[in-house]
């Protein structure tokens, strides 16, 4: 019988609804792990009597977090702004540029080689220069975020757009389709999984960039605030800010994953909505 041949994928729905459903079903284990981690932390701090200026206990951190929430929140908005706008610009510039580079031998030998070389420079080395060039305000932070997001996006994008199986190339040629049709119907969808790998890599880097930039020259934002709090030996406040920073990073990553699920439900990485 033909029906025996189908794998059981057919019952699985794609999309965001099922993503949440699955997430709910599978979230209990990570949640328990997290609770266990915090409880263990709390217990160890109390048992070993670790001074709070070295490492505070979670409860104290959460209390401090609650007390200073308005202030932390205002710094969060600053950082989130830099992170999201820097990332967005990296996407808007990086993805189209990766297409151009993939299709132009000249650009591959110029822009691509130059980008890889620049991308190899440790961001921390460049960040002070950006402050000199773009000032202490928003612009220099955004440029650093752009900088750390741009390279994974560009390099994965190029890789995605130049890789196509010989068979699909031959098939395209045998249809007589022009480059543009081939791009929209075959190359672009085939490249998307790799493009998203770059976007996720960029999203992971984004908050790192924002934090570094704020450390080097800033008067606002979570990175700046962490430094201030650490300077005052207020570890509780520093750790509360780090938690917030993590949440900003996770939110960006989560948004990228949501778009990915929407755009490439067919890809192996999405079929079970991991």
């Amino acid at each position, binding site marked *: 019988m*033909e*029906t025996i*041949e*189908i*794998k059981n*994928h*057919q019952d699985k729905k794609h999309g965001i609804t099922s993503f949440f459903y699955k997430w709910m079903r599978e979230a209990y284990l990570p949640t328990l792990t997290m609770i266990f981690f915090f409880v263990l932390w709390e217990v160890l701090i109390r048992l070993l009597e670790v001074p709070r200026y070295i490492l505070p206990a979670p409860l104290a951190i959460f209390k401090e977090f609650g007390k200073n929430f308005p202030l932390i929140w205002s710094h969060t908005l600053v950082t989130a702004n830099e992170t999201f706008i820097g990332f967005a610009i990296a996407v808007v510039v990086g993805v189209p540029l990766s297409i151009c580079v993939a299709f132009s031998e000249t650009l591959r030998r110029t822009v691509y080689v130059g980008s890889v070389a620049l991308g190899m420079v440790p961001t921390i080395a460049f960040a002070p220069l950006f402050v000199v060039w773009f000032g202490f305000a928003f612009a220099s932070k955004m440029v650093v975020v752009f900088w750390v997001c741009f390279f994974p996006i560009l390099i994965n994008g190029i890789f995605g757009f130049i890789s196509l*199986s010989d*068979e*699909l190339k*031959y*098939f*395209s*040629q*045998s*249809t*007589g*389709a022009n480059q543009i*049709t*081939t791009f929209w*119907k*075959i190359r672009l*969808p*085939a490249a998307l999984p790799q493009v998203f790998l770059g976007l996720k890599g960029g999203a992971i880097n984004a908050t790192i960039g924002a934090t570094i930039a704020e450390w080097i020259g800033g008067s606002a934002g979570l990175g700046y605030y962490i430094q201030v709090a650490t300077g005052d030996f207020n570890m509780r406040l520093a750790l509360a800010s780090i938690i917030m920073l993590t949440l900003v990073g996770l939110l960006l990553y989560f948004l990228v994953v949501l778009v990915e699920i929407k755009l*490439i439900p*067919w*890809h*192996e990485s999405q*079929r079970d909505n991991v």
Partner: protein
Amino acid sequence: MVDEFIRLEGASKCYDSKKGPINAVAPMDLSINRGEFVSFLGPSGCGKSTMMMMIAGLLGCTEGSIHIDGERVVKPQTNIGIVFQNLVLVDWRDVLGNVLLQVEMRKLKVKDYETKARELLASVGLEDFLNHHPYELSGGMQQRAAFCRALVHDPPLVLMDEPLGALDAMTREQLRKDLEKLWMATGKTFVFVTHDISEAVQLSDRVIIISPRPGRVDAEFTIDLPRPRDFNVMQSDKFHHYVKEISSIFMRYGVI
């Protein structure tokens, strides 16, 4: 009465490699008739796939020429359907969408071909799987869909490079039947590349034996068996005789 469709005249292929030139296909003269089911049969690496790619215009001849329907092949041919061993259905489209990709790439009107696509898919038993994605199907079902994609735009010539090579033995048997049925129903010229002797005999009007590299036409067998070639035909002495004759040639090469 015999209507020549494809003609190879001294067509050869020589690849340049770092270790010097490799003669893949020796100068070859060959003629394929319209509506014929022809197999290129030879051991792996003998250049039979290269020959098919040359006919498709996807590889150029080093020497000699190829004509299809009187026109010299100088660039990728578009009036063909092509099937490869590796499944080249795209994962982002369902089965029907994959077949219609052929139509869309050619900027033809999808509306005009949708019925045809559905009919073709139904003829190979995929009518209930139109909206399934390739990864939800078995290899055999995917390859059936690939046949439909190679036929939907009604090309006079279908080129197949070991299309059953990646499938298990039982699925292969089923797909041979499907292929014969599609060929009989459409009357198109099929050029079929394989290294499976009984497969070539079962499917073809004519089996062309290609020698080990550099490939050249070593022998030709016109297979005079009734169609459709069902189980009885396959058990006939005549069928076994063809298989034996061809096997002895490959034994002489030392490949089996």
